[in-house]
């Protein structure tokens, strides 16, 4: 059975390690913050200029000057720091963030990532996605295995405009977990009850199994 969004987030939380500095993308990746194991210290970076992001505020704590990269009101935790956008992306570009967990539209078996633009549809811009994928040490993609229409998102070659090339290390979907290896996608975990055949049916890219 496919993992729920919560199960996906919980699985992604297993990518975290004590002391990690982590950037979580918009959407399902945001949920990962709810599954940080007790006793583990993980510091969340928000690329608009906050290290040490906390949970959403209580109604009385709302502060218009304190938002995350998704423009949602947030809080900060003890030990937090704020900084300019240039300093924030110096941190990202310079390889100081241990891990980013991001959503995607497509991932290729070479680790190419597309998550910012669908030609002919509405163009919103890449925001900080290109900086994150080229700067953060480890990129984990967290996304549904296929589009709502059932189209494959794990491809030989991305057809959408790229966010970065050869940048993805691991993909966690609702069906499985895959590593991007020199020989392509290698499935390292299955969601309960998901079979090799089911995965191959919903994947355009070649899948390798251990």
């Amino acid at each position: 059975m496919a993992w729920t969004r919560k199960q996906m987030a919980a699985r992604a939380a297993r990518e975290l390690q004590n002391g990690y500095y982590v950037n979580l993308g918009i959407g399902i990746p945001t949920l990962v913050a709810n599954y940080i194991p007790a006793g583990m210290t993980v510091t969340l970076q928000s690329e608009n200029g906050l290290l040490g992001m906390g949970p959403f505020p209580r109604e009385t704590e709302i502060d218009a000057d304190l938002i995350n990269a998704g423009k949602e009101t947030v809080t900060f935790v003890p030990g937090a720091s704020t900084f300019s956008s240039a300093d924030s992306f110096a941190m990202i570009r310079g390889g100081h963030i241990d891990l980013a967990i991001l959503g995607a539209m497509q991932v290729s078996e070479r680790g190419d990532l597309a998550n910012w633009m669908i030609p002919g549809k509405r163009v919103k811009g890449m925001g900080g996605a290109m900086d994150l994928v080229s700067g953060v040490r480890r990129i984990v993609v967290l996304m549904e295995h296929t589009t709502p229409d059932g189209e494959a998102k794990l491809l030989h070659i991305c057809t959408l405009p790229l966010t970065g090339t050869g940048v993805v290390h691991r993909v966690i979907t609702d069906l499985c977990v895959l590593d991007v290896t020199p020989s392509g996608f290698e499935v390292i975990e299955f969601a309960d009850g998901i079979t090799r055949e089911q995965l191959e049916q919903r994947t355009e890219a070649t899948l390798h199994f251990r």
Partner: protein
Amino acid sequence: MDDPGKHASGMSKLWPDARAALDGIVKDGMLLAIGGFGLCGIPEALIVALRDTGVRNLTIASNNAGVDGWGLGLLLETHQVKKMISSYVGENIEFERQYLSGELDVEFCPQGTLAERMRAGGAGIPGFYTRTGIGTLVAEGKEHKVFDGVTYILERGIQADVALVKAWKADLHGNLIYRRTARNFNPNAATCAKITVAEVEIVVQPGDLDPDEIHTPGIYVHRLVHNPQPEKRIEKRTVRTE
């Protein structure tokens, strides 16, 4: 002085209001750098005053383009903007309409590259190399160069004619302190323009701020506007209930 109106008389840089502060320094066709991330930390009063000047054909370097009816959205409604240099413009229907119809030109620039381009422009650095955008549309037409076996692209510094920024607190010499994530692009925009105008909530006397806590030294700020109660609209009001 080479730049008219660059320094206020004496060392008080405070101007009576946003309209007066922009008088004579903004012109048709200028390049402006404007701080803010979404609607957080935007120079609200200065944007309204900029609209009211009626200047046109502006190029604006700003991470976002406001929303319909607020922030830079106000300048889009009046067709005063010719081109945006931004990383994300997803919150604005009028923006999209003008962009798709070809009325508005957009240069999409990755967020970190945009911030660094402003910093570089202010720091006398005409160009720098970055991995960001390698292999994507962003890299097209840009110089590629290999350092230690890795390929990077050349990005250019941005030097604006005028910067409009928002800070929390200032002294009369123009030293600025920002608050929380309302800092964002403001310190970077403040450095990259010939003339920088800052809108602040609190104005204090020189000496009231500790030198070590100042985020933007007054040398970068030419005119100050006091707006004690900005609206500070919130785009996504999210709360936890437990």
